């Protein structure tokens, strides 16, 4: 499906979604509360079939966080990017690791690096960082570690 | 003619002239003990350097080449290193069993040296049940491995030991059946009788097809019994780091290492004795002239030549095959080798009764 067709289809599924121009892929902004049901539709819809989550990450915009999901379909080879704004304080979003199982490890990484709480995640704990790092999230812009970080 | 047995007889006579009978026995035992221990050390050195050179040859590299001429003293240097190293005992280990295990391993392989005929009329103990003795004592070695694995208080060691236990106990059966087929053919358990029965040709030639099968089964079984690749599950280093000797260091580790190589030598010596005629030169039926020429080569050379040929075969296996999985290993034994061995034993028995062999 082309980006235009995708736009029409996705507007049908989620009228509140807004589209963003620029970048390589079609960017879709959604509310974080709509995410789980929308993700299920994206995965199960026969004409969309977004079955492959190839990149899951988060961006710290200082005022808020944005979850970024890159999805593709191994059947139709179309790509979309889903973005969802989160609060800076106590960010939380539903987990999608039931739909795309690769999300389990990726969400754990985002949890420790950005402090995003993934609701209903089966095993949300530190993956990369050592014990005792809870609460200090290295990839946030205000993180500071005077000993280990070298300012260039 | 010069031979080892002549020297032994000469020593015996000289002692008999100068000392009373009781002292002669004591002196001869001391000499035998020293010989076994020095043979042990020399075998260890030779086999380790041989393994490293064989593996290097198969892996297109040079192998050890710095210590001594062509690196031949490398294993001596390694021994010194291992002797000087601290032999640690982990805190959680059962200290008595932990320290006992390597000595048990080495004692078992020393005991196995007794009934082996190294040359014509030269063996430590001419036992009338030599073959039975060997199969009985060799199964004790599994106890030392289990002991080491259990006493180390390490899960890798324990798993390695358990694997090894399952493996040695299973493969003993096949090795036993393969040995039995030769016992059936010769009608004797005595090593010397078995060798003398091959004066008109080795069993591998005389016994044709069924003995070939026995020989192949025997080779597979001894490779498994000595825990060497492709059956080195007890110490599978990519799975269990080092298996049952994970916690051992220094000389205690070296003893396990030494025991492994000496065991390889012993099982190959037994294989050579049973199937390839031991020290018996290459004889063909009643070709007296040919047989006589062959007799000029000393019997000890024949023995060591055959043994080292088998050792080379086993090293060849190790450096070419990947490792089996534990269930495949047991399947191979219980579903294939054991039934084949049993049917083969039946064939050999029929052959022995009907005199189909040469």
């Amino acid at each position: 499906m082309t980006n235009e067709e995708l736009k029409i289809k996705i507007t049908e599924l989620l009228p509140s979604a807004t589209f963003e121009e620029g970048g390589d892929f079609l960017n879709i902004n959604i509310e974080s509360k709509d995410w789980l049901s929308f993700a299920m539709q994206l995965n199960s819809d026969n004409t969309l079939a977004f079955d492959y989550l190839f990149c899951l990450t988060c961006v710290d915009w200082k005022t808020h966080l944005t979850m970024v999901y890159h999805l593709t379909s191994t059947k139709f080879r179309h790509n979309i990017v889903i973005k969802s704004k989160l609060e800076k304080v106590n960010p939380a979003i539903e987990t999608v690791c039931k739909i795309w199982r690769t999300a389990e490890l990726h969400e754990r990484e985002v949890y420790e690096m950005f402090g995003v709480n993934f609701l209903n995640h089966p095993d949300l704990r530190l993956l990369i960082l050592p014990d005792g790092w809870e609460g200090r999230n290295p990839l946030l812009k205000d993180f500071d570690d005077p000993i280990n970080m070298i300012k260039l | 003619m010069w031979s080892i047995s002549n020297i032994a007889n000469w020593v015996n006579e000289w002692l008999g002239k100068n000392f009373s009978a009781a002292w002669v026995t004591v002196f001869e035992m001391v000499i035998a003990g020293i010989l076994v221990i020095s043979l042990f050390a020399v075998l260890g050195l030779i086999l380790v350097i041989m393994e490293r050179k064989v593996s290097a040859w198969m892996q297109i590299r040079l192998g050890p080449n710095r210590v001594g001429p062509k690196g031949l003293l490398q294993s001596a240097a390694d021994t010194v290193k291992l002797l000087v190293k601290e032999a640690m005992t982990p805190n959680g280990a059962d200290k008595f069993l932990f320290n006992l295990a390597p000595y048990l391993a080495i004692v078992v392989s020393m005991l196995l040296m007794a009934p082996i005929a190294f040359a014509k009329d030269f063996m430590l103990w001419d036992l009338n049940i030599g073959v039975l003795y060997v199969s009985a004592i060799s199964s004790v070695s599994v106890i030392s491995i289990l002991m080491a694995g259990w006493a180390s208080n390490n899960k890798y060691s324990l798993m390695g030991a358990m694997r090894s236990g399952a493996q040695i106990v299973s493969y003993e059966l096949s090795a036993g059946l393969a040995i039995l087929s030769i016992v059936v053919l010769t009608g004797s358990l005595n090593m010397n009788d078995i060798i003398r029965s091959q004066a008109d040709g080795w069993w591998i030639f005389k016994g044709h097809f069924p003995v070939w099968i026995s020989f192949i089964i025997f080779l597979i079984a001894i490779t498994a019994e000595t825990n060497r690749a492709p059956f080195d599950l007890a110490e599978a280093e990519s799975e269990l780091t080092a298996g049952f000797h994970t916690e051992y260091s220094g000389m205690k580790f070296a003893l396990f290492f030494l025991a492994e190589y000496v065991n390889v030598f012993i099982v190959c010596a037994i294989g050579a004795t049973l199937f390839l005629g031991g020290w018996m030169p290459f004889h063909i039926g009643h070709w007296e002239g040919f047989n006589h020429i062959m007799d000029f080569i000393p019997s000890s050379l024949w023995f060591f030549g055959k043994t080292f040929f088998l050792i080379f075969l086993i090293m060849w296996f190790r450096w070419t095959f990947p490792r089996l999985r534990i269930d495949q290993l047991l399947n191979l034994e219980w579903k294939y080798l054991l039934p084949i061995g049993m049917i083969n034993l039946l064939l050999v028995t029929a052959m022995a009764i009907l005199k189909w062999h040469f």
Partner: protein
Amino acid sequence: MVEEIGTTADGDLIINVGPQHPATHGVLHLVITLNGETIKKVEPHLGYIHRSIEKMCESLSYRQFIYVTSRMDYLSSHINNHGCALLVEKAMQIEVPARAQAIRVLLDELTRIASHELWWGAMAMDLGAFTPFFHAFREREMINEIMEDTCGARLTMNYILPGGVLEDIHPDFVKKTKEFIALFKRKVDEYFELLTGNIIFQNRMKGVGILSAEDAISFGCSGPTLRGSGISCDVRKHYPYEIYSQLQFEEVLETGCDSLARYLVRLREMKQSIHIIEQLIDNIPEGDFQAKTKAVLKLPKGEFYQRVETARGEFGIYVVSEGGTTPYRIKFRSPGFSNLSALDHMARGSKIGDLVAMMGTLDLVIPDIDR
């Protein structure tokens, strides 16, 4: 951590494989729950070589951050560099000279062969066969020498810059590469003879580590791991970059879904890489090896994503730019991280010896996972 030693309440054994273990090829730490020899659960603990490269890149310029990526998947460092350079070129619309493109692709494929050779040797060693390792390294050494001549380095090449390559190729490059191809074509067949046909090897690989197509997609696997499950996913085919769209090559697919399929995919991929090199080696266009670029690179405001096919799978770079000289946020989508997530699913119910085979066929490079 206390819960990682001893046994569970059900009497199952818990074993720590790694961070120092002969089979993990690096500092991967797997906590395995075992019932006898049967695996009940595999839980990866990462971070032993985590350097926070993503954070580091936020303070590096668009020329500098390329070199950090060499340190991630050190076996396909050239391809990682390539991806980063492509992203900057795409964002700034830099036209790369044809000569540079051909050189980049040539070195990409050489890197892929070198990486697969190391994998082949290391995997055979995991299975207990030591000899293949040395046979593979003999040929890998030739590639390393070619790389050394041209790039000045053997492992972390750092040869690519935005707009081209650092230097022109070495005068001996074409000759040496041709010699290598001629030899390597015979050697690939030797690899098949030495290991693939071995009955023990076949038994160890067949039906082990089953990863069905649906699971492989769901776990986000890529590269040979996904192609071993029969899913076409080659970035070079589906999202062609550089001159791959003009080259003749076949995407290798196997439908076995097991370790053997993944093994065969990689071996056959080496042959395809040779095929690509053969097409290019006599046709390297003349001209500049570098486009003229500004001294200071500034990416326009926006978000960019570039993917390349490394030896391990799809490597993605996601850059958020605020228009400055450094990236605002950078995310590396490493193939190893996603492939690793499938390990637990694959390993459950199999023997501990199979885990080693599975790890071997996933071809994990730990710095690539930890970043």
